[in-house]
């Protein structure tokens, strides 16, 4: 039976889609069969980040409405063959997500894959609720700043009250993924510290992803950073986070600033 994982945050622009793609690709590279489901109906992006935008024929809404079957809608990744994508519809809106339809799609995907990773839209409305409703576990993506932390707190409250698991009286497994962590700003103290974020949200830490141009570069070429730049700092952080998701015990490292000789020379010259 598959693990159904929702990647969510409440706030927009914190890195849900990037993290969905990077974690999914890392899990797939580790030999797991993974499907990424884009729940951002009307504002889909996961297909772009995965480089599959020119291969979309059918989407999640088509499957829900019975216009296509799953096999027709699933897009297999060309780089990692255990990785698939179920794109969202760009022309519809989130009202097209019916609870019965979503339940059936998730149940069908669970039979075929080890991991069903749902990329939640921002907000707390229907799209986000549908994405989290059937999840067994959740990754809450948070930037180290107050508005993101508060929105994540709100989402954790909803995960514990509105989901199928919560209604059955069970506890949902929740993990915190801190993204866009800037070691320089952290050192200067103009960013919320990791400890503060963990203290406020009080859920286990899955990983800390450093802010890096590699992430943006990877998105622009249509590849998850764990595939495009597997040796970069963010890719290594995502890979470690994926291993923790699989239950391995891996120590979380807080990214620190590494100054090379060139940085030092450059700084000198600027000064």
């Amino acid at each position: 039976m598959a693990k159904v994982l929702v990647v969510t945050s409440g706030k927009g622009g914190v890195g849900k889609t990037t993290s969905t793609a990077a974690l999914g690709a890392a899990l797939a590279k580790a030999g797991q069969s993974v499907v990424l489901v884009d729940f951002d109906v009307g504002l889909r992006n996961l297909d772009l980040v995965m480089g599959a935008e020119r291969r979309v024929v059918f989407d999640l809404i088509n499957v829900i409405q019975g216009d296509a079957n799953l096999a027709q809608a699933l897009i297999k990744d060309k780089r990692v063959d255990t990785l698939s994508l179920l794109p969202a519809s760009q022309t519809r809106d989130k009202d097209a997500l019916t609870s019965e339809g979503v339940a059936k799609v998730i149940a069908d995907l669970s039979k075929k894959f080890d991991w069903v990773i749902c990329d939640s839209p921002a907000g707390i409305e229907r799209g986000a609720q549908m994405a989290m409703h059937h999840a067994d576990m959740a990754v809450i993506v948070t930037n180290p700043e107050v508005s993101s932390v508060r929105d994540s707190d709100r989402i954790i409250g909803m995960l514990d009250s509105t989901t199928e698991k919560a209604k059955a009286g069970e506890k949902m497994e929740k993990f915190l993924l801190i993204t866009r962590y800037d070691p320089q700003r952290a050192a200067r103290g103009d960013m919320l510290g990791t400890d503060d974020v963990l203290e406020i949200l009080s859920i286990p830490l899955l990983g800390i992803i450093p802010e890096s141009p590699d992430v943006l570069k990877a998105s622009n070429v249509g590849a998850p950073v764990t595939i495009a730049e597997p040796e970069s700092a963010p890719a290594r952080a995502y890979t470690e986070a994926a291993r923790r998701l699989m239950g391995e015990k891996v120590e979380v490292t807080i990214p620190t600033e590494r100054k090379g000789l060139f940085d030092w020379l450059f700084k000198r010259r600027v000064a």
Partner: protein
Amino acid sequence: MSGTHSSPSRIRMSGRSFLALTLTPEAPLTDWLAALDHQIQRAAGFFTGKPVILDLSLMQASTPDLPYLLPALQERGIRVLGIEGGDKTWPAVANWEWPESPMGGRASGPVTIPENDMTPTLPPTLVVEESVRSGQHIIWPDGDVVILGAVSSGAEVTAGGSVHIYGALRGRAIAGIGGNADARIFTRSLAAELVAIDGFYATAEEMDAKCTDKPTQVLLTGETLAFKPLP
């Protein structure tokens, strides 16, 4: 003609039955009234809102103090819905506003007045085992609320009694709603957006800075909120 209603609209009617209490005064009336006062004292509010039938079958036209009986009952907040027995033509009751008595009804045995209403039962305490997250609102209008976790920024806890927070208070805590000025707020770490007791509130800016992030209790002294460090 358009727009006129040819038939009058129906009115809604339905049946409802109440248990009316029947009081049967006995002579001498001063003693009977004293006994009634004693009963009322033991069960305050027992007659509030209850329909009462006054049964004068044990009275005579010449019973002393009879003219003052009905006013005395009304003074005690007893609403006399009907009068049975006795006679409207007695001179002693000439000044009474004799209510139109409801007809029929069945006797349903003696009514015992509850005796323990005076001892107040303790309102229940609500215990929340985890943190109250942003956007969540706990309302407990009667008793105390105990939160074992934290109260997040954007969360709200409202209690009729005191609020006890074993984690940090970063959201709102409102104690003593419904007029309990003795309610207090306790927290392991004060970083609240707003605290209020019995309608008196303080925003984060107005709180005592020396208590920030410290174990604190908040209580009402007169009309101001006092912030006291907890040991």
